[in-house]
């Protein structure tokens, strides 16, 4: 059984289509990344799947329950870390978790044990009696994730979980996500930090303007293209050099970083053409500081797909 399955899931706000006929499945125990530019529909998708919003059309099954017919049951079995920390700042860290534990039907000794476990894990136990209003952004983010786990849900939605965290805290969160996945928990998270998605996700879905534009395992998305990136750092950039590079038919894209005098060239066949390009740069008076040929990263693939989609839409 899939942990999550959507069927033509659509959400409209007036004439704006925020989520447009999304079809995807998330397997149990999977870490599933939802990527997309600002306003792509990532948060709306999470809000639909956590029953905060009702779909305009289409449906979804989460943990075996229909998001329209069994919204209360869905809310019971999922954990949600929202875009904003959504914490009560006049209450202490302990009081916040205590309230949400009770709201999710966790009580008595089990509740006390769970709250202690989470606060200790996130290094917040010594601050349990401090009001959340006095917490740093990182501490609030950790507490917000702790809240989403207070009832030990099997499906967890995390909206930008590492956003605004220092590198150490971000690493702790990523380690936690890996550990939860090993325990069989399903994690759906949205992020704009593509490095996080690359390190954590089994599969990713890229959405733009509410539409799914790519879905698959990371290896699949990366291997769908055999393109390589040639990066040439020069002492000084010259338009003549750029024009010379553009003349090669194997060159698919070219971008220039003036601040570092670096030319990045997307190639169809790097082995054959790289020496020729280098030769051409030198012949046009270029002083080469370094040359590097690399596979495209998820970021490169993401930008290419999103830009391509934007061009198609125009």
């Amino acid at each position, binding site marked *: 059984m899939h942990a999550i399955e959507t069927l033509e899931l659509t959400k409209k*706000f007036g004439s704006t289509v925020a989520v447009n006929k999304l079809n995807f499945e998330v397997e149990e125990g999977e870490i599933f990344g939802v990527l997309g530019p600002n306003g792509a529909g990532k948060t709306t998708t999470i*809000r639909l799947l*956590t*029953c*905060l*919003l*009702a779909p305009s059309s289409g449906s979804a099954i989460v943990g075996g329950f229909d998001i329209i017919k069994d919204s*209360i*049951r869905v*809310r*019971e079995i999922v954990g*949600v870390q*929202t*875009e*904003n*920390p*959504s*914490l*009560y*700042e*006049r*209450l202490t860290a302990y*009081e916040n978790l205590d*309230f*949400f534990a*009770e*709201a*999710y*039907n966790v009580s008595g000794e089990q509740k006390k044990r769970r709250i202690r476990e989470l606060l200790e894990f996130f290094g917040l136990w010594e601050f349990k009696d401090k*009001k959340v209003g006095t917490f740093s952004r990182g501490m609030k983010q950790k507490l*917000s994730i702790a*809240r989403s786990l207070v009832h030990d849900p099997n499906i967890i939605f995390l909206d930008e979980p590492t956003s605004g965290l220092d590198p150490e805290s971000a690493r702790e969160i990523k380690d936690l996500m890996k550990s939860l996945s090993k325990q069989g928990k399903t994690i759906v998270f949205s992020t704009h930090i593509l490095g996080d998605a690359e390190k954590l996700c089994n599969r990713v879905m890229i959405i733009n303007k509410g539409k799914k534009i790519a879905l698959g395992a990371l290896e699949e998305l990366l291997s769908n293209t055999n393109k390589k990136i040639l990066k040439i750092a020069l002492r000084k950039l010259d338009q003549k050099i750029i024009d010379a590079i553009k003349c090669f038919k194997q060159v698919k894209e070219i971008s220039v970083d003036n601040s570092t005098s670096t030319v990045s060239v997307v190639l169809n066949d790097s082995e054959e053409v790289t020496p020729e390009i280098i030769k051409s740069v030198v012949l046009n008076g270029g002083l080469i500081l370094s040359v590097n040929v690399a596979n495209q990263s998820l970021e490169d693939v993401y930008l290419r797909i999103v830009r391509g989609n934007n061009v198609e839409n125009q």
Partner: protein
Amino acid sequence: MRINKVILIFKKDWREIRRNWQILLPIFVIPFMISVLLPMFILSTPSIISMPASSLAGIENLMKNLPKNIQTEIKEMNIQQALIYIMLQYFIAPFFLVIPIMVSDVIASDSFAGEKERKTIEALLATPISDDELFMGKVLVAFIPAVIATTVSFLLYSFVVDLYSLRLLNGKLILPNLTWLLLVFCLSPTVALTSIGLTVTISTKVKGFREAQQISAGITIPILFMLIFGQVMGIVILGPQMIVFLTISFLVANFFLFSIGISLFGREEILSKLV
């Protein structure tokens, strides 16, 4: 509806309110002003005691419309005693409808609109607490302080008034009496519920606390002023029968108001109003 979830919302909100002086201050100040300062002002104003007879013409209507038992009681009093007695017994009575409304209005306005402003609403709406449980939890947290504030105000007011009456009415205690008991324990909570139901519903629809407070005050205060004005002019006298009639009317209105309020409660609309 699960009562334990309603109480859970109440407990959480009350914890927050206890630590918020902006909300707590009116809860203490308004009842104190009405129950202690207002009667003391009336009792200590020499102009009332030595009011010329011509000034009494405006309250003749009120005196004529008083219940017979009250008329019998004031027959034995001199004019100043009667005037003060009527003021304490009748003029101030509608203000005891103002207390629960003013106290609850601050809390009820903050219920959903405050959570939107502080961006805490999304996590709350994501919990498996149902719409009616959320709504009633928010109503309860405004209702209980309002009832407590009104009761405490009544006790304070009775103390102040009886101190006066012991001295000036030959040992007679004005309060408590049936009219006031019905007013404080029947009509006042019922009116408070109407105001709270209305304000909580408004709070779900608007973006911020101030907006909710202004709209609800714009609806409830004119109604209250009509009641106070009616009482002063002798048009509506809050005697036991009138209080019972109004209590039943407000109870019926509350039934419809709460049904409408819960049916209008939409998580999606609340989220769409996030600031």
